[in-house]
């Protein structure tokens, strides 16, 4: 593989990590959805480049699923939900951005420290991808932990799933059946979450998940 090829792979996978940080930083609903769409585009680009490099045509289908479902369908649907819930003007309460960012960088460092020694036998391509994928997954978890709004938690969950697909595509791709079923299960999870969002709002008049804690008597 020529240096330029691996540079492009590095660029695409690295931009996913960067976009995960942007997701952490963004506190407005529509901007958050746009960044999430870009996250999915970066994933699609990264997977398509892997498909091209590994001469693995089925990975192109993975890229297409990422592009259509996660880049277009889910952001558009989420946008509709946000408008119907009437929360498109609200600014999500982010638990102070500065420490969150530092914590996120620490997580990226952790995933690199963990991944690079474990995968020493693999090629450069796979190692890099796995390290970045683990960071994207951890950043998705971090986002779910730090956000209080249910919709941003959903986006954290979806970005986490993007990280999983990135890891799978790096490791010589996963079987198409698995890929498609994962894609659909995410879509179904999304539908279930969407229904739950409305149920939560109906019950508590808000999608701020702290209301749930109070109802359980935790705070």
């Amino acid at each position, binding site marked *: 593989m020529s240096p330029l090829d*691996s540079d492009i792979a590095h660029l695409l996978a690295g931009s996913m990590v960067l976009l995960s940080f942007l997701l952490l930083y963004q506190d407005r609903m529509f901007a958050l959805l746009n960044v999430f769409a870009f996250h999915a585009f970066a994933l699609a680009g990264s997977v398509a480049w892997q498909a091209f490099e590994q001469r693995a045509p089925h990975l192109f289908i993975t890229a297409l699923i990422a592009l259509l479902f996660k880049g277009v369908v889910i952001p558009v649907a989420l946008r509709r939900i946000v408008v119907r819930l009437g929360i498109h003007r609200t600014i999500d309460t982010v638990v102070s951005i500065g420490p969150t960012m530092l914590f996120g960088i620490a997580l*990226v460092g952790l995933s*690199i420290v963990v991944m690079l020694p474990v995968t020493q036998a693999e090629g450069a391509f796979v190692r890099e991808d796995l390290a970045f994928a683990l960071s994207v997954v951890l950043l998705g978890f971090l986002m779910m932990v730090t956000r209080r709004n249910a919709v941003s938690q959903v986006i954290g969950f979806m970005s986490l799933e993007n990280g999983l697909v990135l890891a799978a595509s790096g490791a010589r791709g996963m079987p198409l059946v698995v890929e498609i079923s994962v894609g659909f299960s995410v879509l179904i999870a999304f539908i279930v979450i969407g229904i739950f969002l409305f149920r939560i709002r109906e019950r508590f008049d808000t999608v701020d998940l702290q209301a749930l804690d109070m109802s359980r008597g935790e705070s």
Partner: protein
Amino acid sequence: MSYSDWLIQLAQTALVLGLAPLLSGVTRKIRARLLRRQGPSILQPYRDLLKLIRKEAVVAENASWLFRAAPYLIFATTWVAAALVPTFASGLPLGAVADLIVIVALLGTARFLLALAGLDVGTSFGGLGSSREMLFASLAEPAMLMAVFTLSLFAGSTQLSSISAYMLGPGAGVDISLALALVALIIVSIGENARIPVDNPATHLELTMVHEAMILEYSGRHLAVLEAAAAVKLLLYLSLIACVFTPWGTAIAGAGVLAYLIGLLAWAIKLALLGFLLVLFETAIAKMRVFRVPEFLGIALMLGLLATILLFVSKVSR
């Protein structure tokens, strides 16, 4: 090091000072035109400086010697830092004795002196400006250093000449760390030069001002020197970005007259382009609240850190 190298170094040092007011004049003119105003002539900063030098310097009664000495020290450190950046020719003698970290340290010294001078007279405005400047600096300086480390990791050297030679060579490719370092450097230079999202260089009485608040007590030749230092600093940052990320056309020391002329022309074009982009960005964006600025500079720090980490991954895994 031959005689001619030193001559070129001297010429570069003089040019940096001589062209700095022109650069700020040009940016002001472009900004005015973008706002559909006529705007002052591009030579106006020179006239302002001349006028200020001729005027009497009014110094507060309780000002100490530091208040009088600070403008000259700030000007000197900024000028030396600017002379270290390769502008139209690289590989010059001064550049060989000092690297990027020295430039950052010199700028830090200037900032420290300016903050002290702002505090010296004891007015509330000066103190306010100084405390804000220090708050921003605590994020901007590490961000700048992280960008510097990223570039040095690429080039294997902290010398600006070697970095720009590396960027010209075949080793530099499409790399996300480079892009992140560039964005971090741009954010830092916007913050450091008190440009619009962070501070407004055009106003003198606004509660959110930072740089202007620190120099509010100065007048006459002291103010002239400080204004010149600010102009030189803008030129320094733009030249730094141009020298690292668009090294094309820069002459190598001892290359002959024609190469130097090409270098000069290329430098002028790069500066004009960067200045235009800066002003375009300024007119497109509104000024931030002061308490948003640490977040803005925090992004630069985060990008710098991320650039280093990503670069580390690609270096280790290969």
